[in-house]
């Protein structure tokens, strides 16, 4: 088993690095004390993978994702995508939030998808943009809801629409901040499966923040476990279970157990 893991890690190293973090640090200063949320993080993200950032709340996983998105300033370190320093948000890295209210409520579902396409002149005409939007709404199984307003959709449908809006821009990387965290268990499983289908069809790289070990194991190629004390990544665990993955199948519990043991769930021991 140990040798297998070694082999698997080496296979991964062969892949192209799309985003490279070197010694990235982010501090919050509160009057006297300095809170080190991210302390010298090193991480490579490979093209086409799903990387899960897993950890308890307050461990800095969202802060790390926002760094990669380019939303926040950082104290030190370098964060390169395709060799260029990330200094601001860009269309090639699209963020999907946990909040259901990320769609613009004053636009219908299709207008929400079309608008960023118009801004970025993706299609040559409005008709072309509309066709692109319809195609991606079909991909996320929202056909028939084009003309609904966001407030008329369920939480799961809103997250699907947000996925369509993001994917239509053909980003290289999708940054997902616990996007299914507020959904009920059944809808969450349906959306995880949908995400995997979309990932396989588009080949997009996904960085997926979650605090749910099961979600991380089912979705990801690698799991970066973050801890509250360490202000950084404790360990990156490769997860090469065969897809489609089913909870409880061979290999599942080993990975689950491995991640669980890293999570400080019983810190007194």
């Amino acid at each position, binding site marked *: 088993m140990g040798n297998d893991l070694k082999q698997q890690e080496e296979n991964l190293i062969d892949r192209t690095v799309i985003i490279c973090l070197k010694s990235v640090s982010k501090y919050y200063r509160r009057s006297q004390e300095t809170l080190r949320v991210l302390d010298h993080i090193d991480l490579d993200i490979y093209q086409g993978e799903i990387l899960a950032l897993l950890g308890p709340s307050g461990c800095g996983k969202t802060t790390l994702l926002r760094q990669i998105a380019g939303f926040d300033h950082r104290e030190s370190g370098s964060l390169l995508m395709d060799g260029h320093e990330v200094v601001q948000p860009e269309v090639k890295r699209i963020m999907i939030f946990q909040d259901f*209210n990320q769609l*613009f409520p004053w636009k219908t579902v299709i207008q929400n998808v079309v608008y960023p396409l118009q801004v970025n002149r993706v299609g040559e005409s409005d008709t072309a943009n509309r066709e692109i939007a319809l195609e991606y709404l079909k991909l996320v199984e929202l056909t028939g809801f084009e003309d609904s307003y966001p407030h008329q959709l369920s939480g799961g449908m809103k997250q699907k629409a947000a996925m369509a809006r993001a994917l239509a821009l053909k980003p290289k990387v999708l940054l997902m901040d616990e996007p299914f965290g507020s959904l009920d268990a059944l809808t969450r499983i349906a959306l995880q499966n949908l995400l995997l289908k979309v990932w396989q069809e588009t080949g997009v790289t996904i960085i997926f923040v979650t605090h749910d070990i099961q979600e991380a194991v089912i979705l990801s190629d690698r799991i970066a476990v973050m801890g509250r004390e360490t202000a950084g990544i404790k360990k990156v665990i490769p997860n090469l279970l065969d897809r489609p993955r089913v909870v409880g199948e061979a290999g599942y519990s080993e990975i689950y157990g491995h991640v669980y043991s890293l999570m400080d769930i019983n810190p007194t021991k």
Partner: protein
Amino acid sequence: MKMTNKTSSYQKIKTRLFWVIVILVLWEIVAQSGIFPAAIFPSLLVIARALENSIVSGEILLQTAFSLALILQGFLISLLAAILVSSLAAGNKMFNGLVDTLAAIAHPLPGIALLPLIIVWFGTGTTSILVIIVHSVIWPMILNIMTGFKAISPIYKEAGLNFGLNRFQIIKDILIPASLPYVLSGIRIGWARAWRALISAEMIFGAVGLKGGLGWYIFKQRVFMDTPGMFAGIFVIVLIGIIVEDYVFAAFEERTVKKWGMI
């Protein structure tokens, strides 16, 4: 959901109508009882006849048109200026501080208090009335719009930045629609303020030529002790207020923020 909306607005109209009738009946009872002299408390019929006469002669229509034209001008200038100023303030901290300070100074200042000064500066023409309307409307509007901008969920702005929107697009396509409920309440307050400012200013300025507006019309009837005429003028003001509230603002709200589930 649409059904309940329709039924509830129908219910609202029914209740309204009921109370309007009750008030009119009470009015007529008091007028007919002779408790007050007819000269100061005229019956509905007399008021209706005064209204009819001034409509037939065309005078009240002329004055109403004059007032409406002024208020619309003042209102539009204020709305555009308020959106412009608030947008600039949203993008620049220094300017934001200036606008905040100016609003704190000017907002509590009644337009009428400025009248003598405005007469000295602009004379007694329509320009002065416009200045008073704009002063009365612009500050509550700016305050509302700026509050609306601040209340916007940061996710909308972040999503916008992520999609590569420039500053202008963020303001036009995100800040303004996202704060529309606040903009709308600013417009409502502004409209009420504009009417008050307009009618008071017209009463004081008097007529320029034949035209003096509804305020002047009401004021003028006092000179002739024409109480029914005064009520006719007041009736027109109330009517316009109700039409604008129920058919312009409410309809706009129905088609925007309500349809979008934002309120």
